[in-house]
C-alpha cells in the first residue's frame, strides 16, 4: 500500500518536472557584450519579458566595449558549427553574416507587428538583407554629440556654439580660462567618432558621398582637406597626454571640470548621470556645431542564427526586443534612444528627449546617416583603413592634404 503510494507520487513528480522543463525547452542562447552595470540591468528587462513567454535565457556575455571580442568568438563558434541562437550585432556585421546565409528570416513577426512602419528607413538598411528582415534593432546611438561642462561654458561666455566658428571661439575662451578645452582619448575609434561630426558639419552631401558612397572626388577633394584641417584645429585644444586614454576617462575630465567639452556618442551621458550630474544644470548636450538637423547613428541589433534553437523562440525574442515597453526601459538605462519612432518619450531626460526628436526629424528629412566610426557606412576593412589615416593625421604624421590623398589610396587598397 505504502509502495503503491510512493510509486504514484514519484510518477506525478516526474510528470510535473517534465512539464516544467517542457515550458523552458525553447531556450535562447544569447551572445552579447552588455556586461557593465547599467547594461546588464537592461538585459535583465529583456530576460524577464522572455521568461513571461516561457522562453529560457542562456546568457553568453563576452566583455569588450566595441564587441570585437564577441565577434571573434562568434566566428569561432560558427566555424565549429555551434552558432548561438541570437547575437548582438552592429551594422555591416549583420549584412556580412546575412550574405553568408547564416541568419534566420524574421519576416513573419515583422509583418505581424508592422516593423516597416516604425523603424527608420536608414536603420532598415542594416536590419534587412535582400528585402528580408534578419535583425531586430534594440536602440539607436548617435555620435554627433558634444558634451559640455555647464560651469566651463558659463565661464566661457555661456552660449552653446552652433557653428564651427563659434565652437572655436568657445574653445579659445576655455583655453584662456586655464582648462583643457577638449577632453579626448587618443584611440583610433575616438578620433574617428570626432571625425564623424567634423565631416557632417561640412554638409550632408559631402558626408554621404565621401563616407558612404566612397566617391573618390569627395574622398580626396577640397572639403576632405578642410575636414582634416578642422581635425588639426581640434587637436590643438587637446592636452598632450591624450594618447591611449579611454573615453570614459575623458568624460571624467569634463565631469570634474578639468576639461571643457567632449565629442562623443550618447553613451557618454551615462558617465555624467552616474556621477550625479543633471542634464541642463551640470552639463549641456548639443549636436556637433553645424550638424543640427542631421544625425549619424549606430544601432545595436539582435540577429538570429538559422538552425540554432527553435524558430518560435527566436521570433518570441525578436518580438520582445521590438516591444515598445522594453525599448523605452532599455534605452533610458543605456543612454541611447529607441529604434522605433512611436515610443513615448516621457521616461527620458532632456538629452534623451532631444535625441528622440532629432532622430525622428532626421528620419523625416532624409538626413539620418550611419556613423562611419561605428561601422555603419562601410564594411570593417574599409572602416579600419579610414581609421588608419584619421589617427595618423591626428597624431601629426600627415598634413591635411597628404591625409586626403592617403584617404583615397587607403580606401582603394581595402576594397
Amino acid at each position: 500500500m505504502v509502495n503503491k503510494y510512493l510509486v504514484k507520487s514519484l510518477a506525478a513528480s516526474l510528470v510535473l518536472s517534465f512539464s516544467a522543463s517542457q515550458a523552458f525547452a525553447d531556450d535562447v542562447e544569447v551572445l552579447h557584450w552588455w556586461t557593465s552595470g547599467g547594461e546588464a540591468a537592461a538585459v535583465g528587462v529583456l530576460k524577464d519579458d522572455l521568461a513571461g513567454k516561457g522562453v529560457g535565457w542562456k546568457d553568453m556575455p563576452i566583455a569588450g566595449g566595441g564587441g570585437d571580442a564577441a565577434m571573434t568568438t562568434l566566428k569561432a563558434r560558427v566555424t565549429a558549427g555551434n552558432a548561438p541562437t541570437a547575437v548582438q550585432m552592429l551594422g555591416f556585421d549583420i549584412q556580412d553574416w546575412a550574405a553568408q546565409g547564416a541568419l534566420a528570416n524574421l519576416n513573419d513577426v515583422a509583418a505581424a507587428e508592422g516593423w516597416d512602419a516604425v523603424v527608420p528607413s536608414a536603420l532598415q538598411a542594416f536590419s534587412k538583407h535582400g528585402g528580408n528582415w534578419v535583425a531586430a534593432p534594440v536602440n539607436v546611438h548617435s555620435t554627433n554629440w558634444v558634451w559640455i561642462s555647464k560651469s566651463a561654458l558659463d565661464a566661457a561666455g555661456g552660449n552653446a556654439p552652433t557653428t564651427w566658428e563659434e565652437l572655436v571661439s568657445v574653445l579659445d575662451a576655455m583655453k584662456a580660462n586655464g582648462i583643457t578645452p577638449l577632453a579626448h582619448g587618443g584611440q583610433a575609434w575616438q578620433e574617428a567618432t570626432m571625425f564623424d561630426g567634423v565631416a557632417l558639419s561640412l554638409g550632408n552631401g559631402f558626408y554621404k558621398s565621401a563616407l558612404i558612397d566612397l566617391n573618390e572626388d569627395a574622398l580626396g577633394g577640397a572639403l576632405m582637406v578642410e575636414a582634416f584641417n578642422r581635425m588639426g584645429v581640434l587637436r590643438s585644444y587637446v592636452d598632450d597626454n591624450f594618447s591611449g586614454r579611454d573615453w570614459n576617462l575623458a568624460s571624467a575630465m569634463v565631469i570634474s571640470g578639468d576639461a571643457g567639452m567632449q565629442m562623443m556618442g550618447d553613451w557618454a551621458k551615462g558617465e555624467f548621470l552616474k556621477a550625479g550630474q543633471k542634464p541642463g544644470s551640470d552639463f549641456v548636450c548639443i549636436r556637433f556645431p553645424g550638424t543640427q538637423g542631421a544625425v549619424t547613428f549606430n544601432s545595436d541589433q539582435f540577429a538570429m542564427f538559422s538552425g540554432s534553437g527553435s524558430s518560435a523562440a527566436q521570433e518570441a525574442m525578436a518580438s520582445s526586443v521590438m516591444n515598445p515597453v522594453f525599448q523605452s526601459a532599455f534605452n533610458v538605462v543605456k543612454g541611447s534612444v529607441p529604434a522605433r519612432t512611436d515610443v513615448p518619450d516621457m521616461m527620458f531626460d532632456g538629452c534623451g528627449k532631444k535625441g528622440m526628436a532629432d532622430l525622428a526629424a532626421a528620419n523625416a528629412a532624409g538626413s539620418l546617416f550611419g556613423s562611419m566610426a561605428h561601422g555603419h557606412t562601410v564594411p570593417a576593412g574599409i572602416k579600419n583603413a579610414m581609421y588608419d589615416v584619421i589617427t595618423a593625421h591626428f597624431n601629426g604624421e600627415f598634413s591635411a592634404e597628404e591625409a586626403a590623398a592617403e584617404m583615397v589610396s587607403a580606401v582603394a587598397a581595402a576594397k
Partner: protein
Amino acid sequence: MKNYLQLWLPRIVLAPSFFLILVFVYGFIIYTGYLSLTDSRMLPTYEFMGWSNYPKLFGLRHWKIAVNNLAIFGILYILICTIIGLLLAILLDQKIRAEGFLRPIFLYPMALSFIVTGTAWKWFLDPGIGLESIMHQWGWESFHFDWIKNRTFAIYTVVMAAVWQSSGFVMAMFLAGLRGIDGEIMKAAQIDGASGFRIYRRIIIPMLRPAFLSAFVILAHLAIKAYDLVIALTNGGPGRATELPATFMYSYTFERNQMGLGATSAIIMLIMIFSIIIPYLYSELRSEKES
C-alpha cells in the same frame, strides 16, 4: 617479447603527441598557407586566387610600418639584451658574495608575462601618473619624458620594457656558459700575464659562442612573435606607430575581415622565423656530426 616491447614502446608513447603536433602545428601551417592564396574575408573561403595577396600586402603602408618597427625593435632588443645579459653574467661570475640572492633578482622579470610587464611599464612611463609626474612632484619641474606618447619614440619604450624583462634570462644563459668553462684555462692565461679584460675578450667570450647562438635564436623569435607586450603597453599607438607584424596579423584576420591578407602576413612571419631557425639547426647538426 621484451625486444618487441623495447622496439615499440617509445613509438607508442610518442605517437599521440607526434600526431597532435602534425595536425595542429604543421596541418594548420599548411591551412594558413592555403588561406593566404584565397580571397578569404570574414570566414575562410577556399577558392584559389593565386599569389595576389603577397604584392598587395607589401603595398600596404600599415604593413611597412609594422615591418619597420620590427626591424628597430628586433635589432635593439637582441643587441641590448645580449650586452646587458653578458655584462651581468660576467659581474656575477666574479665569485661575489650573495650571488644566490642577486641572481634571482635579475632573473625574476622573466617569470612575469608580457601583459604584466606591459601594463606596469605603461603606468610607469605615462607622463600623467608615472615617472614624469613623480619628478615634477619632487620638484624637478623641467623633467620631460613622454616617449610613450610620442609617435617617433614610442617604439623605443617597447624595447625598454622588453629588455627589462628578458636580459635577466640572457644573463642566466651566459652564466651557465661561464660556469662550464674550465677554471684552469683562466689560471693558465693569468700565469702567461694576460689582463682580466684580455682574458675575457680573447678567451672567455669566444668560448661562449654556443650561448650567444642560443640567446640570439630565443630573442629573435620572441621579437618576431611579440604581441602581448605591444597590446598592453601602447595598443599599437599613438596612432599606429607601434604596430608589429603580429598585431597586424591579428587585426587583419579577426577585426578587419581580411583573413586572406592576415594569413599572408602570418606566412611572412613564418618565413622570417625559418630564416633564423634553419641556419641555426644546420650549424648545430653539423657540429654534432663533426664531434
